[in-house]
């Protein structure tokens, strides 16, 4: 039996495209205006900034106080492997988390 390929352009896909466009528009509309102040482009990112950049793209950020310093070390190794974080960035993130970690 030869199956004919049916090309289905569902209503759902159009709704999704619409939702994407609406979301994109809202994000851009409510985004903070570009900074006019000149910033040093060579400034290295802090551990807190790297934490926001890398971790928040998959899950809400956890508070540093939620785990102890030793637990953060374990968790950051786990996430370095799972999310393929560069070692140097993982070390800065760990330092930031350990500075305010719980006892």
């Amino acid at each position: 039996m030869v199956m004919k390929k049916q090309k289905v352009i569902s209503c759902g896909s159009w709704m999704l495209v619409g939702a994407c466009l609406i979301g994109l528009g809202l994000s851009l509309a409510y985004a903070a205006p570009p900074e006019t102040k000149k910033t040093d482009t060579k400034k290295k990112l802090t551990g807190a900034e790297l934490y926001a950049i890398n971790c928040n793209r998959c899950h809400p950020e956890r508070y540093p106080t939620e785990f102890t310093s030793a637990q953060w070390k374990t968790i950051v190794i786990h996430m370095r492997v799972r999310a393929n974080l560069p070692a140097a960035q993982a070390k800065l993130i760990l330092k930031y988390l350990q500075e305010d970690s719980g006892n």
Partner: protein
Amino acid sequence: MKMRSIILSVAAGCAMGLLLPPRATAAVSDDDFNALKNQVQQLNDQVQELKREHQQDGVTHNEDQMKIQQLQQQVGETQMLATNAAQKAEAVSKVQSAYPIPASGPGARHNFTMAGDAEVQFGKTAGQHSGFALADFAPIFLFRANDNILFEAGFDTTLQNAGGPPGTGGGANTTFSLSFAQLDYLWNDYVTVVAGDMLLPLGTYNERSAGWLTKIPDAPLLDDQLLPGSGVGVQLRGAVPVGDNGQSLTYAVYGVNGPGSVTGSGSAFQTPGDPASGANLDLGSNVGILGDGTQQNLHSNPSGGGRIGWFYPWKPHYDVELGLSGQSGEWDDAGNHLWSAAVLDAAVHIGPYFEVKGEYANTWYGTDDAGTVHPHGLWVQAAYKLAGLNLDFPVVNDLELVNRYDHENDGLGTETDRYTAGYVYYLTSTLLFEGDYEFLHSRGPAALPSNLFVLQLSYGF
């Protein structure tokens, strides 16, 4: 003469007395005298204060001397212990192997941590009774030996209705499955060695699919049905930072046993020529241990695969990630046919409120009786946090709207389109109340059930 000298002396004395200036005391006033007296009194007070301080210093000095003596005694004891330890180490070294295995290191601090997630789900399939569908507890055990070695294992413990014909009282099943169990060795800053049962980096969903991360309870069709979730083998992976803005290039290469065959044959269906018997391709069960206890690969060669990715953030919460991954290897026991997959994944974040991501997978495998089968599919998911509207409404600000479009073709005559619309309500950052409605349009011999409504409470820990 003598008398004369005396008289002259007396006269000279009188003359000098008259010529000398008046007595000094005569020039000091009472005020000056009192001021001087006060100064003398103050000096006297200061001398007394210095005396007291000197006495106190003396006491402190005595205490310091005692402490110094105690410390000297402790140093002596420590030196004795060190000497004994050196002697013991020397004695041990005489009985050890000439090539001792390096220890974890003097800085090793073993640590055990548990992370993971838990879910409770309520669902209703169109035309059927609603009910609480499952309770799921998925812990991840993390055991760190030192700064470079981590063992991690994820389990999935699920309670579900046992099913069975109506009225037979099938009861409930508790399934306890190993999602992954892997040993991670951070070889250096750029290479991590992973071995064991690993989540495979075919796309990104596999590795980021915990219940509190996905925003939609059900997995995309292609990740659920077209791609293997895990494999037993070895992997090298790592990342190279590019510049100082957080940009990175990532890679992963691995070898695993790869997919197998349900019946061992290379037939497309479990019963050759009968689509109703189900596909013969088994994506996940080739773990090297057979039902009779023997250990062997189901086919002669392992599968190889990998992923390369590029992550570019231009500022926090604004980033793009692209990845290309693939895997190929024999799947039938005779090793006559290859199963291969190519996956393209992408994710974009524009601000902390909007994200869109998706995957496209193209797979193909040879069969004895149906030629090359060509399963493929894609999904695209968009989400927007209403907090981005700045409405200052507590409930609205904790809501995120989610939409996803799925398409899957199993290559054996079944094709499915699914549109999912849902929400995530953040009770806390890790406790989520999710809900969605799935519009299904599925046709073919393995068509999926009808539309579905799902509510889920997810907790990440």
